[in-house]
């Protein structure tokens, strides 16, 4: 069973696992159409309910965003931005559902040191496997979108699973199912991209010249995509990165450093081994022992004089 199942994975953290070439699954995707979003937080609510998560009751900080950030219990969060469009003079309330983007090239998975703690299924979902999570927080550094959160209660990393449990039985993620206005839709990645085109046509007809799809190539595309009214300025949407990619520092750390470091240490050890076998022993000779006695006597005598 396990052997077959392993073919359902595309990537597994901290292993040399390579996906078998023989099987290809449908890649799934969630499309979040910001232009249809009313910021009702049904997605947040459905996420908490479905995943049996409950958050502490917070406070109001003068904005609609609640909780104020993603947490180990809040895997998705509406972020509200009030923006006055300098071109039209109109106020736009840009409301973005934040959460894991399920990158095709996931930085979290790359950074993760624990084998099997982060997996990517063939359908594109990037999932955290708590059983194997060690709570090191490396995924936090690996993620270009600042998504994973480490629980202080159990020291495990948490983020949106794209409801892998629901998707595995053929259902849409809880947020997508709940979304009252259909701002969140779910399907195969191809279908979502096709559908997104119809949305762009509609948006362009309403004057949003720069409407576009957010499926950033820097991370190999994502399995959570946005339709943005102003795709040329993703940072308007509560700081959505313009061109996200795994940090160079992380690439260096998890790439060159990892190998070079191992090589250096290995080389040093090997050098020592070779040296030990070929080099002349550095040992004290009998002559030196005798010289030492003389020297000690001399110096001791000198010491007594002084």
């Amino acid at each position: 069973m396990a052997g077959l199942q392993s073919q359902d994975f595309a990537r597994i953290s901290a292993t040399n696992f390579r996906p078998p070439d023989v099987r290809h699954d449908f890649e799934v995707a969630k499309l979040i159409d910001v232009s249809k979003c009313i910021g009702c937080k049904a997605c947040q609510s459905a996420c908490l309910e479905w995943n049996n998560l409950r958050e502490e009751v917070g406070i109001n900080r003068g904005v609609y965003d609640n909780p104020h950030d993603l947490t180990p219990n809040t895997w998705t969060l509406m972020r509200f931005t009030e923006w006055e469009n300098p071109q039209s003079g109109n106020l736009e309330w840009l409301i973005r559902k934040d959460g894991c983007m399920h990158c095709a090239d996931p930085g979290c998975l790359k950074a993760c040191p624990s084998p099997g703690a982060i997996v990517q299924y063939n359908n594109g979902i990037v999932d955290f496997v708590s059983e194997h999570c060690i709570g090191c927080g490396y995924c936090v550094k690996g993620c270009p979108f600042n998504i994973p959160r480490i629980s202080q209660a159990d020291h495990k990393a948490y983020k949106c699973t794209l409801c892998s449990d629901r998707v595995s039985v053929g259902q849409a993620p809880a947020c997508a199912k709940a979304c009252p206005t259909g701002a969140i839709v779910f399907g195969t990645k191809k279908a979502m991209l096709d559908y997104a085109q119809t949305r762009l046509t509609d948006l362009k007809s309403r004057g949003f010249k720069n409407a576009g799809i957010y499926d950033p190539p820097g991370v190999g595309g994502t399995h959570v995509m946005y339709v943005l009214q102003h795709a040329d300025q993703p940072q308007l949407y509560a700081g959505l990165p313009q061109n996200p990619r795994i940090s160079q520092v992380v690439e260096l750390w998890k790439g060159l450093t990892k190998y070079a470091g191992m090589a250096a240490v290995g080389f040093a050890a090997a050098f020592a081994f070779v040296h030990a076998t070929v080099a002349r022993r550095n040992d004290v000779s009998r002559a030196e022992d005798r010289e030492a006695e003389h020297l000690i006597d001399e110096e001791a005598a000198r010491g007594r004089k002084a």
Partner: protein
Amino acid sequence: MAVRREEARTTVDRYPGRVRVNHWVTAISLILLAISGAALFHPSLFFLSSFFGGGSNTRWLHPWIGVVLLASFTILFTQMVRYNFWTKADTKWMGHIGEVMSGREENLPEIGKYNGAQKIVFWLMTVSIIVLFISGIVIWYEYFGASFTIEQQRFGHIVHALAAVAMLLVVIVHIYAGFYVRGTISAMTEGKVTGGWAYRHHRLWLRGEAREGVIDERQTPLRGHNTRPAE
């Protein structure tokens, strides 16, 4: 500290007990840190986390061992720092390092308690431990995750990794030197070295020690080593 004439040999006290304890605490910490660090550093070495009861334990133990290391090394540092200031002789000695590696020390200047290589090891250890500790704080997610930006933590990781590699290299040199230069290890196990070893490697130091006086510990100085009951 003293030179002692024992039954069969002459020894020189090199490290008192408190230094030896410190050294070994440091050494063990370092090894544990190296193993646990390696487990977190490279996936192929993740199996090493089993020695600590799994990845989670490794994750929380590693930084605490680092704290132990820092404490013991700090004491070690205060115990040793005065012998580790650089001298002209050290420079000259370093010029002949190739001969040392080949087991020939005839053309070297007389050296005090530590030679140039040892001093370099000392200072490299000091620097890398400081760097490791600082970068370690930055990436100690459980307590300091909120105190540093993610970008700072990313740099922390790479600095920590590089410093750890550097330190491992130093440690390898240090350990290998201990084995290669025969008669060295007893300094940290028994606290003393033979007179010949001191004469060969640290003659200046030997002179100083001898000048302090020689303790004759022989019960029957003339009869030599035949006093013990037959085994």
